């Protein structure tokens, strides 16, 4: 059952990720990226990370992608213009990429030949209770630093986005 769940959503994630790369129009890429993020949220649930799954849907598939779609609409971004690429890029691009992915997959299989299997409910430490407890005790300083970072990001975005007043 868990294997079927994993396979279904892994295939959805990979197909949507391929679509992100291949689509010509940015809005199609954005919709495909939402598909990747949604299926990754289901996989997080399978791994017992309930809080992260919820945050993935709310923050990534919600807030960040709304920002992307908003900017795409604001700039009226159309299909991108294809240009001729250099000979080396055309020749070596895809094979090197496949070699990169294959090498990483080989390393992983080599490192984890017979590791523990993942089944639903095998790890319950990712609940909001556990995450919040760790966040406000052991990781309190990084958490507070993060709030400064977000404040800086907000101020930076406003400064970059405002009209020149002089």
């Amino acid at each position, binding site marked *: 059952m868990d294997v079927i769940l994993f396979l279904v959503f892994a295939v959805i994630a*990979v197909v949507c990720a391929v679509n992100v790369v291949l689509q010509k129009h940015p809005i199609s890429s954005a919709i495909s990226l939402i598909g990747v993020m949604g299926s990754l949220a289901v996989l997080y649930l399978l791994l017992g990370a309930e809080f992260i799954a919820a945050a993935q849907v709310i923050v990534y598939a919600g807030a960040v992608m709304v*920002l992307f779609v908003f900017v795409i609409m604001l700039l009226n971004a159309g299909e991108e213009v294809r240009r001729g690429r250099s000979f080396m890029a055309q020749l070596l691009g895809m094979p090197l990429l496949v070699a990169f992915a294959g090498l990483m997959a080989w390393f992983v299989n080599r490192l984890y*030949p017979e590791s523990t299997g993942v089944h639903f409910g095998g790890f319950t430490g990712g609940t909001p209770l556990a*995450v919040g407890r760790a966040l406000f005790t052991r990781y309190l300083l990084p958490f507070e630093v993060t709030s400064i970072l977000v404040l800086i990001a907000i101020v*930076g975005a406003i400064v970059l986005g405002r009209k020149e007043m002089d």
Partner: protein
Amino acid sequence: MSEVPIAWFLVLSAVLFALGVAGFLFRRNIITVFMSIELMLNAVNLSFVTFSYQFKQVNGNLYTFFVMVVAAAEAAVGLAIILTVFKNRSTLNIDEVNSMKD
């Protein structure tokens, strides 16, 4: 077999990361390049959560949380930069935004 091997999650993460790299290198639209970066961040998040499951500790989830916060901040600033670039150059093609080259 009712359990998913942990290596499958890591392989999925590797494949998604490679696709993100592909989008980053092949695409010419600056917004799509930015979305490829988000795809790579998501792939790394998946491996963090997987390791969190393997070691039965919550730390991986917290790293994922921090990565999410940084990604959200980065998206806000990055898209503001894209808006400014478009305002000044009225193009989204990264081949034409190359004045630092010469």
